[in-house]
C-alpha cells in the first residue's frame, strides 16, 4: 500500500515543475537528477512502441524512484500518414491543462492506427474523457491560442535542437544535454541512466 501510494504520488504531474515544462505532460519529480525529454508524435509507430514498451519500464525503475523526470515534448510530423498529428496534439495538450494528459496520450497511442487513418481523432479522445464537462473543456482548449502556441514552440525547440526524427530522447544531466539515438536498447539506456546517477 505504501509503495502504491509513493508510486501514485510520483506519477502525478508535478506541481512544482520548472517554468519551461508543461507540468501536465511531465512525470516524476522536477528535482530528479536526470531529466529526459521525449520528442514524439502520436502518429509515429516507433513512438507508440516506446510509449507502450519502454515507458512503463522507465516509470517503474527510474521515475517512481525519483531518479528521472520525464517530459513529453510535441514534435508533430508532416506529410502522408501524419495529417491529423497537430489535431491530436491539440487535444493532448488541452487534456494536460485539466490533468488528463496521460489518459489521452495512452488512448491516442492505443488507437493510433484507427484515427490516424480515418481522421476521427475526437472520437478516440472523447471515449477516454467520460465526463461531458471534461470533454467540453478539452474541445474548447484544443483551439486555444496558448495550446497551439505551446505545440509550435516545442516543435521549433526540437527543430532548433537538430531533431529530425521521432522519437528522440534528450537527457539533461547537470545542465548538459545529450540527445540519444532513436529507439535505443533498454538495457543500454538503463546502464546509461545509472551511469549518470550520483554514486
Amino acid at each position: 500500500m505504501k509503495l502504491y501510494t509513493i508510486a501514485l504520488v510520483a506519477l502525478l504531474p508535478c506541481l512544482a515543475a520548472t517554468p519551461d515544462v508543461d507540468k501536465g505532460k511531465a512525470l516524476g519529480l522536477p528535482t530528479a537528477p536526470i531529466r529526459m525529454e521525449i520528442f514524439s508524435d502520436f502518429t509515429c509507430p516507433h513512438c507508440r512502441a516506446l510509449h507502450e514498451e519502454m515507458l512503463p519500464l522507465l516509470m517503474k525503475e527510474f521515475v517512481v524512484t525519483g531518479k528521472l523526470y520525464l517530459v513529453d515534448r510535441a514534435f508533430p510530423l508532416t506529410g502522408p500518414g501524419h495529417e491529423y498529428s497537430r489535431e491530436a496534439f491539440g487535444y493532448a495538450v488541452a487534456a494536460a491543462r485539466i490533468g488528463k494528459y496521460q489518459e489521452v496520450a495512452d488512448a491516442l497511442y492505443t488507437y493510433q492506427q484507427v484515427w490516424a487513418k480515418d481522421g476521427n481523432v475526437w472520437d478516440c479522445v472523447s471515449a477516454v474523457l467520460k465526463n461531458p464537462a471534461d470533454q467540453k473543456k478539452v474541445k474548447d482548449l484544443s483551439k486555444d491560442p496558448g495550446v497551439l502556441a505551446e505545440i509550435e514552440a516545442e516543435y521549433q525547440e526540437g527543430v532548433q535542437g537538430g531533431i529530425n526524427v521521432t522519437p528522440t530522447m534528450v537527457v539533461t544531466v547537470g545542465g548538459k544535454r545529450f540527445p540519444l539515438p532513436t529507439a535505443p536498447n533498454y538495457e543500454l539506456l538503463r546502464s546509461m541512466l545509472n551511469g549518470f546517477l550520483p554514486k
Partner: protein
Amino acid sequence: MDFYQNRVLRGILLAIRVVLGAVFVYGGYVKLRLPWALFGMAIDSYHLVPLRYVEPLARTIPWFEVVLGLLLIFGRFMRISTAAVSLTLAIFFAAMLRAFLNHQQIDCGCFGPGDPISKWTLLRDGSLLAGALLLTWTALRSPRRMA
C-alpha cells in the same frame, strides 16, 4: 632544394601526426568522461555488432583511441601505431558510409552524442583517414623514426 622540400614534407607529416593524435586523444577522452552506455547506444545504432559485443567495445574503444593518440603525438612505435590508426579509421569510415548510404539517421558517435552522420562528418573522417594512410605509408617506407 631537395633538402628544403624534405623539411617541408617533414613539417607536414609532423603536423598531420600531431593533429591526428590530438583528435584521437580528444575522441577517447570525451567518451571516457561519459557513461560507457552512451557510446554503447551509438555503436548499437549502427546495427553492425551483436548486442553482447557492444559493452566490451564501448568500454575499450575509448582507451584504445587515447593510447593510439598518445603514441602518434609522441611518435612511438610509428609503424604499428599508424597502421592501427589507419585500420581503425577505415572501419569507422566504412561503418559511417554504410549508415549514410542506407539513410540511417544516426549519430556518428565519434566525439560523443549530438553529431549526426552527414556529408560533413564523412568529409571530416575521410580526411583523417587520408592523413592516417599517408602517415602509414611514410612510416612503412622509412627505415627510421619519422619527424
